[in-house]
């Protein structure tokens, strides 16, 4: 049985987060406090959240508590179980890295005109909201925490509100967050109307009929999917994430989306507690589409943070592929494989949190020292900021799902579960799952292409602009923040069995089936289904790789033997200038050509007065034209019709009164 101290640590985490929020009011007068006091508190809060999560996972019990807030007849219920614990870890670890990183990063804002209390205060509230969402055990507290999370992150998105684009992004973000929240609320309402109470326990007890359950599922899928950024509900994500300060972007992309995933798991896997293949298929399809569209749109971007945001769409898609597979297999009774898929999804959740956080922090570092977000102006940063370069490379390899880093593990697990499709009874599903696997494979390959582009253009080659040429290494705290995440990326890639052993408590509690066989062969061997079916000796591969490369360098390269420098050969052409390098746009051109019809491409070449040609390329999201503008138009139209009511003539108003009176008399008499 879990001892209360896990919960105690969680409470401490919330207290510290609130304290950092409150103390940041002082930063209005003393800017230094933000980095010497507020951000350390933030990091501490994250750390205790991490401890709480780990304790919950290790002890694998359930701790409940009741806070004296909320409605008179329904106080705030708090519940810390394995699922909550896992997500506490996700939140804690990334937030901790951010807390390390931020002191160096926010230094840049101290001279800025934007008020610091906003940054620190809403940062703390943001963390509080996320922690409370995970801990909530009744719909009311859940909604309060959920909206607190949305609202505070919205204020952070609007932090640099001088540009109209940022304001627009913030508005769009808040609007969609609100609508999503309403959908979630309605979903809870459906479950509560059967369960009789808004406490999660009551909902867990309630057995919904298939119809109502499907309604609740659909609402949860829409609501949480909107927050998680599933296509086609993703439109806000690439707008909002990039415009926030980078450490906040890291939190939003790395953690907040995971909180949405948590909500989905909590509602569908835990509260509804029933599986139907229709649901699984829906999740699987939407997930695959999100993954593919996300990576394709990411390839088209040349704004680094925007690109990363689109990659969040992709990875969320991958997570939902895993969840969809889990639902599918559970619906058809193959619990073992379903658990594999579930664990794969969870594993990818933490992985994505780690490397996406890392990448956003890296982007922040570039922004900090080169003040540049546009890939096509970067270049050669590896030699100017080597540490950031190294960490960013690790992030790129991880997100491209390459061994021996963590991204590969989760994709490997997902593939493994998909490869068990032959066990399914229905031929349709049997053929659907492999197609999803194919899309996953395509996604992975495209992601690799995308990050070759990112790293090659940003960190390799020569600088494409003057201010990038003047980039300097970032301060220690920022490097530390990135370092932690990079190290974890490697560890989760090398020692999957250890971490899966930890995560195991989650399916154990939520689904009632653990993944014992996965780690049965000892810590060296990861065997999700059985040793005969598939096995992966991650540590061995990693060791072999590093040892062999080391040996190679030692034997062949004699360590780092001096090499003579010379001009680039480049087939004997004139020494290449920075302008001759491939840009990000050029790099993606072949793929743009092949997948052309998925984008809304506006490419034109106009001759200028001076005889030069001006080439402009605009790749925009098709989702806008398809889903968003129609809704906006409809509302505008009705509004225009309705305001005729306020005609301005008092006699017409009196006429309305008379008419209403007569009608009502008619009805009543």
């Amino acid at each position: 049985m879990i001892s209360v101290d896990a919960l105690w640590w969680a409470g401490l985490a919330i207290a510290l987060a609130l304290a950092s929020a409150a103390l940041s009011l002082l930063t209005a007068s003393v800017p230094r406090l933000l980095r010497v006091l507020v951000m350390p508190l933030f990091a501490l809060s994250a750390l205790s959240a991490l401890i709480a999560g780990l304790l919950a996972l290790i002890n694998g019990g359930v701790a409940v508590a009741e806070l004296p807030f909320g409605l008179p007849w329904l106080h705030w219920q708090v519940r810390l179980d394995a699922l909550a614990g896992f997500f506490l870890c996700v939140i804690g670890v990334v937030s901790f890295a951010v807390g390390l990183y931020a002191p160096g990063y926010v230094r840049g804002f101290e001279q800025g005109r934007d008020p610091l209390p906003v940054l620190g205060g809403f940062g703390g509230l943001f963390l509080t909201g996320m922690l409370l969402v995970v801990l909530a055990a009744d719909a009311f507290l859940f909604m309060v925490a959920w909206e607190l999370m949305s609202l505070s992150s919205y204020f952070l998105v609007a932090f640099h509100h001088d540009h109209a684009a940022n304001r627009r992004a913030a508005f769009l973000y808040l609007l969609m967050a609100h609508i999503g929240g309403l959908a979630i609320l309605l979903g809870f309402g459906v479950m509560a109307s059967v369960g009789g109470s808004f406490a999660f326990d009551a909902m867990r007890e309630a057995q919904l009929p298939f119809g109502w359950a499907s309604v609740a599922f659909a609402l949860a899928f829409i609501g949480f999917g909107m927050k998680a950024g599933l296509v086609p509900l993703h439109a806000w994500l690439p707008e909002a994430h990039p415009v926030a300060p980078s450490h906040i972007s890291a939190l939003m992309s790395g953690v907040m989306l995971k909180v949405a995933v948590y909500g989905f798991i909590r509602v569908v896997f835990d509260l509804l507690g029933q599986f139907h293949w229709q649901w699984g298929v829906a999740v699987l399809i939407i997930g695959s589409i999100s993954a593919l569209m996300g990576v394709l749109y990411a390839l088209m971007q040349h704004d680094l943070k925007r690109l990363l945001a689109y990659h969040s769409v992709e990875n969320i898609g991958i997570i939902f592929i895993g969840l969809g597979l889990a639902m599918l297999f559970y619906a058809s009774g193959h619990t073992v494989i379903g658990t594999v898929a579930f664990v794969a999804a969870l594993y990818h959740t933490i992985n994505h949190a780690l490397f996406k956080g890392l990448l956003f922090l890296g982007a922040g570092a570039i922004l900090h020292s080169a003040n540049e977000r546009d890939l096509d102006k970067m270049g050669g940063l590896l030699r100017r900021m080597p540490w950031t370069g190294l960490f960013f490379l690790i992030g790129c390899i991880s997100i491209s799902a390459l061994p021996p880093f963590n991204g590969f593990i989760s994709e490997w697990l997902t593939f493994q579960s998909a490869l068990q499709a032959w066990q399914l009874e229905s031929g349709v599903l049997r053929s659907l799952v492999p197609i999803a696997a194919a899309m996953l494979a395509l996604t992975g390959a495209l992601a690799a292409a995308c990050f070759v582009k990112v790293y090659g253009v940003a960190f390799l080659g020569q600088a494409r602009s003057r201010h990038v040429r003047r980039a300097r290494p970032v301060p220690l705290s920022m490097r530390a923040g990135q370092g932690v995440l990079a190290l974890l990326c490697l560890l989760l890639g090398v020692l999957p069995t250890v971490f899966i052993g930890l995560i195991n408590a989650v399916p154990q509690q939520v689904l009632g089936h653990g993944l014992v066989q996965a780690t049965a062969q000892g810590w060296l061997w990861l065997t999700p289904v059985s040793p005969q079916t598939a096995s992966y000796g991650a540590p061995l591969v990693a060791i072999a790789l590093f040892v062999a490369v080391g040996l190679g360098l030692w034997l062949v390269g004699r360590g780092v033997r001096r090499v003579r420098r010379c001009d680039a050969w480049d087939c004997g052409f004139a020494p290449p200038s920075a302008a001759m390098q491939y840009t990000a746009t050029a790099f993606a051109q072949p793929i743009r050509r092949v997948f052309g019809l998925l984008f809304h491409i506006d490419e034109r070449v106009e001759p200028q007065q001076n005889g030069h040609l001006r080439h402009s390329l605009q790749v925009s999201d098709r989702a806008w034209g398809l889903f968003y503008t129609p809704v906006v138009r409809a509302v505008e139209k009705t509004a225009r019709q309705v305001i005729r009511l306020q005609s301005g003539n008092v006699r017409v108003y009196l006429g309305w009164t008379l008419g209403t009176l007569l009608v009502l008399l008619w009805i009543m008499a």
Partner: protein
Amino acid sequence: MTALFVTVFTPLLGGLVLIGVQRLSWAGWINILVCSATFIGASTLAIAVARHGVLEGFSFRVDAFNVYLLVLTAFVGMTTSIFSRPYMRYVCDTGKTNERGMRLYHVMFQLFLFTMLLALSTDNLGILWVAIEGATLATVLLVSLYRTPEAIEAAWKYFILCGVGIALALFGTVLLYFAAQHVVTEPSAGLSWSTLHGVSTQLQPAIMSLAFVFLLIGYGTKVGLMPMHQWLPDAHSEGPTPMSAVLSGLLLNVALYAVVRIKMLVDGSLAASSSPHVAGYLLMGFGLVSFLVAGLFLHRQRDIKRMFSYSSIEHMGLMTFAFGLGGPLATFSALLHMLVHSLTKSAIFVTVGHATHISGTQAIDHIRGLIRTQPAVGWGLLIGVAAIAGFPPFGVFTSEFLLLTATMQTQPWFTVVLLLGLAVAFAGLFRHLHPMVYGPMPQGQQPVKANMLPVMVHLGLVLWLGIAIPGFLARWLDRATELISGVHLL
């Protein structure tokens, strides 16, 4: 009883005193003083009621339902007077009005409060009518205080529409009295609400439903129910801002209070008839229409005060719907919503007053970059609107959450409509709010001497209510719920 008299008649005295006060600087302070006295009286009254239950006599009746509205009214009146002292001085300096206007303002402010408190605390439906009509008369001159063509037009519409509405309400009252006559023996008690409520089951259903139509339209005009709402945006937008604050925060509440009192009688008499819930259905219909249509109106506003008055209509619609829905949960949520809405909305109007002061106009297109110019005002407006839009952890969310719950239990399909309406209204508010608070500061825009204390207090209270409803308030509201819906919740 003394507490009651203090509460109700202090404003009257204050008004009479203020007629004589020449010095403008004094008037403002006296105004505050009187309001504070009223508030103290109201609080003691509340304590008394909490201790001894219902308080009756001299055709007054204070029970759980109206006592908290009394306190609310006195409180908002006080904070508004605190805000209005510097604000009205600035108005006077800009030459929009003169000494006489200022004196008129202060007198009428007090008289308005008097009528409000009278309407709330009286037990006699006739006096209730007189008081509400008196409220119109007290405020109509303030609406036209600035003497601009728009102001006069707004005042005229306000006067005519509310006058007609009130006249119809009087007809309804007559019918009520008529119905009462062959149940209640001695005529003087024929309009006493408590008496009628006691015998409500014996009242003639046919007459009562007829009377309800007139009273609903009459007082509904004051509540701002569509389609009798048209006076409301005009009056709110053209009057001085403190006036808008009390109109939105108090007058609408009192009118709704009257409607609910009447509904309680009608429900009693119709209980046995073929259609027992018809009154509730009418309220739900009006409420829903007002809620949805007002939400759409928000999208096409050019004047900031008009916008927020439409938001008031929207929320009144929500409450009306809730009262119409009946049942303990819905009633509780409606009572709570009355509370948080008037707190939040008056806070917003105070902030809007400062915002218009900063930018020198009410046109949304010309109010820009408030946060840059004066963070306090900008953030006040932003957070206030977030609160009114129903974001937790503010109280409005709590009441809306409860309302949705109640709707989900009885009329599930209405929930979808409500949520759509909420989303539309939300978008309408924020699309206009965003450019006003955010963005760079316009040329030559100066911060002003703003007194944000009332705003902070109000929003703080709303936040408190959102995080935890204090026990005593919960018990109050619960008793009121029991009074209205017959069932109690806790």
